[in-house]
């Protein structure tokens, strides 16, 4: 393919892009060359500047320095409209679809075909079916978005930008929400697209995908391009990871077992029914399991299969039936406050929504969830001294990078916010820790730190429940794995023998096991 580059201009060429935000240089001399008709991967840690770069390319903001060339012609995008006019479309990590409209309605939204007040739905449907057939992105134009699965929603997003004439597609972490076989399907479609002359750029930090699917790779670290790999077969995942991190690759793997025979949390027949409907769908259906002291139990499952509800029911935020024994004591009828006081630690899946009060200072957040127990409570008062002391301990021991404990939580980066939450729960000396996506959205460094904290606590006898969408993390951390599908625990697997793709087939119900 190297001969092609001399005759055909590059689809995208970015030279020395610099983008500054107040106090931070997000991109500091990024170069990117994407050949037309290829799948190009951009890899880097969280905060390396990938999203900033893509926003530059998509016209969401303008670079402070550097040039953008599309098909050999220099461009200055003022808005995403300019970018799409040049054939550049973006699929965001968080889908932007109206759930109560159908597929075709979502796709034409803002660009409705037809004259005056008449909407040409027939024409739109025909064009959609044709696009879908050509690229293996088939989707019923009349299906309601709310009824679609994650993979189908993503297909809808891709169709949307194709419908608008995109020839260069940017996908931001497209596989984060998919199970393995959906990933295969996605890249098969993307391959069809590139065969038809389109160009695909995708952002990820999953290195196995990059090596498997990409035609070329650009590695970004600290806002700079640190590696351009025109031929992925020449590198290993380890090489890429070291380029990304600039040091050795962390791994979640646990070696020696610390599992004891002492049950810490016994759950029997836990059932959560959809709210406001007595005969509603069972979001969690008769979950039964035990976590022992010193054990990490992993729950795998495609998001939306009841894992989130399971954790919330255990912590007492969602009403549920069934029994929950904490070290032999029945806590099923206790309120959240009492459960947490008795030693249930909780790392919520969304730290900004459930885990922190962003406008509270770090020391105020250090008491969050423990505000009625010692050392934070002193009679009816909050012991500010104790909260300050605890915050200092958390910042020091859990490596929260902050100028001080008096700053508000929103000033911290996502990874540091997460370390604050993890540190808060761990320093409260829990008996059982419920960790929902403990390393979601944090960079590789922080992720390694959090894994270490979980392992250390396990060694000391903590019983941990880990829910995660990251299969590598689940397999690497857990002593035992349960798979959750449509609210039920459908399989129990041994993480030392299971592979991610095997796990994936249990998660989607393609493979069944009897527990």
């Amino acid at each position: 393919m190297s001969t092609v580059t001399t005759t055909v201009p590059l689809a995208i060429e970015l030279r020395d892009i610099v983008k500054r935000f107040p106090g931070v240089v997000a991109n500091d001399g990024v170069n990117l060359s994407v050949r037309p008709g290829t799948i190009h991967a951009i890899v880097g840690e969280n905060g390396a500047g990938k999203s900033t770069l893509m926003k530059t390319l998509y016209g969401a903001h303008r670079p402070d320095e550097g040039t953008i060339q599309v098909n050999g012609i220099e461009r200055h995008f003022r808005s995403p409209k300019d970018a799409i006019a040049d054939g550049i479309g973006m699929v965001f990590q968080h889908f932007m679809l109206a759930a109560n409209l159908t597929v075709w309605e979502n796709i034409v939204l803002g660009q409705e075909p037809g004259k005056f007040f008449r909407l040409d739905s027939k024409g739109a449907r025909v064009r959609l079916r044709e696009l879908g057939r050509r690229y293996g992105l088939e989707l019923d134009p009349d299906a309601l978005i709310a009824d679609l699965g994650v993979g189908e929603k993503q297909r809808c997003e891709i169709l949307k930008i194709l419908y608008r004439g995109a020839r260069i597609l940017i996908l931001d972490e497209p596989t984060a929400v998919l199970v393995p076989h959906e990933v295969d399907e996605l890249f098969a479609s993307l391959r069809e697209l590139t065969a038809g002359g389109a160009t695909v750029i995708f952002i990820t930090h999953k290195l196995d995908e990059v090596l498997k699917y990409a035609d070329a790779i650009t590695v970004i670290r600290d806002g700079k391009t640190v590696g351009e790999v025109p031929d992925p077969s020449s590198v290993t995942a380890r090489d890429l990871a070291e380029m990304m991190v600039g040091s050795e690759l962390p791994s979640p793997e646990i070696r020696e077992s610390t599992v004891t025979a002492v049950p810490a949390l016994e759950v029997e027949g836990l059932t959560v029914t959809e709210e406001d409907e007595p005969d509603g769908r069972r979001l969690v259906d008769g979950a039964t399991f035990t976590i022992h002291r010193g054990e990490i139990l992993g729950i795998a499952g495609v998001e939306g299969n009841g894992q989130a509800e399971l954790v919330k029911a255990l912590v007492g935020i969602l009403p549920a039936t069934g029994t929950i024994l904490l070290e032999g004591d029945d806590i099923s009828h206790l309120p959240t406050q009492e459960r947490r006081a008795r030693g249930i630690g909780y790392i919520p899946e969304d730290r900004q929504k459930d885990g922190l009060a962003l406008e509270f200072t770090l020391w105020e957040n250090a008491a969050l969830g423990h505000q009625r127990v010692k050392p934070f409570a002193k009679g009816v008062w909050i012991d500010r001294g104790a909260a300050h002391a605890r915050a200092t301990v958390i910042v020091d021991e859990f490596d929260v990078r902050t100028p001080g404990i008096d700053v508000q939580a929103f000033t911290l980066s996502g990874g540091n916010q997460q370390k604050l939450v993890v540190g808060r729960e761990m320093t409260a000396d829990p008996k059982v820790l419920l960790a929902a996506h403990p390393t979601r959205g944090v960079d590789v460094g922080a992720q390694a730190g959090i894994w270490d904290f979980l392992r250390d606590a396990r060694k000391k006898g903590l019983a941990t429940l880990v829910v995660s969408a990251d299969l590598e993390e689940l397999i690497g951390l857990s002593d035992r794995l349960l798979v959750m599908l449509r609210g039920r625990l459908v399989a129990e697997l041994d993480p030392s023998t299971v592979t991610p793709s095997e796990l994936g087939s249990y998660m989607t119900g393609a493979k069944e096991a009897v527990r």
Partner: protein
Amino acid sequence: MLPGLRKALLAPLVAAVAALIVSSIALLISGNSPQEAFVEMWKTIDSTESVVLIINRAVPYYIAGVAVAIGFKMNLFNIGANGQYVLAALIAAWVGTKTDLPAPLHVTLIMFVSVVVAGAWAAIAGVLKVTRNVNEVVATIMLNFIATGIVSFLLAEHFRETETGGLVAQTEVLPESARIPSLNRLVELTGFHFAPGVRLLGFLPFAIALGIGYHLLLNRSRFGYELRLSGMNPDAARAAGVNPKAMIFKTIVLSGAVAGLIGMHYLLADPQFYKFGDQFPKTVGFTGISIALLGRNHPAGIIAASLVWATIERGTQRLSTLGIPQEIGPILQGSFLLAAVIAFEVVKRRSDAAAATAAARAVHAPPAPGPVLGSGATA
């Protein structure tokens, strides 16, 4: 100046300038001289007597501001402070005239009744919100109307005084034992003497105590922590074991109970009243909404806001003698409030962005020798 204080004063100063410009335009349009009006306003407030009158006027505003601010702190809009305190003041006045107790006890009883009645009236909105999810704004507005009706009915039919043969719709006058004396004696102890007829009304210490209590409750107590948390992030509050319904109910009742003190200033400490009747101020609860907004729900901010409010009212009192419409007062108040709310938000966004940048800079600075990644252990 302290950077914190400068930051706190920047927005109100900008707002004051904006308010002066807006009201000057209004004066010019109505054919009056802004200069003349403002000079006259300044003359009106520029005396010891005026300062005392302004403080007297600000005391109930402060209480109303705190009552509303308690709700605001957790995003509850108690629009019903008005109904709560008016109904409470009437019933408290009636109880006061029907009882005969030694002075401190009598005053305590009347205040207690007022606080309980106002809290109970607010509790209706609380119950509706918690059990039936009725928006508290709607509920408290409706309860204001109902309270007004009940007050008219009780005053006309049951609590009306008999001394004048029931000609005037007012309660009987409270006996001496139910009155809070002015602070003039206390001030004279310092050697300072007011001009004759000037009285610093005796409810001021109660307002000061309320302010201190509000500060302690909000910033030092567990209840205040959970209150602020619930207002800021209800999901996190729930995850932290705060029962949202209980919190909503407690906050509404507390807001109402504090509102019950508003009328006590007039009823127990102001010689113009000592009774509940037609002349009794009946809209201070609404003023409290403006005061709380202007004071940013901050214990000290509300002091400043109530003083500003009272100063503008005092300043515009004599304008009509010059042929300048007094309505310039509400225009000044309104434009000041609006400009201040906008200015506060702008300053807040700027300082938030600056704080985030400062934190990012501190973290991205060349790393100080610190703990190595992953070396931490649980405590």
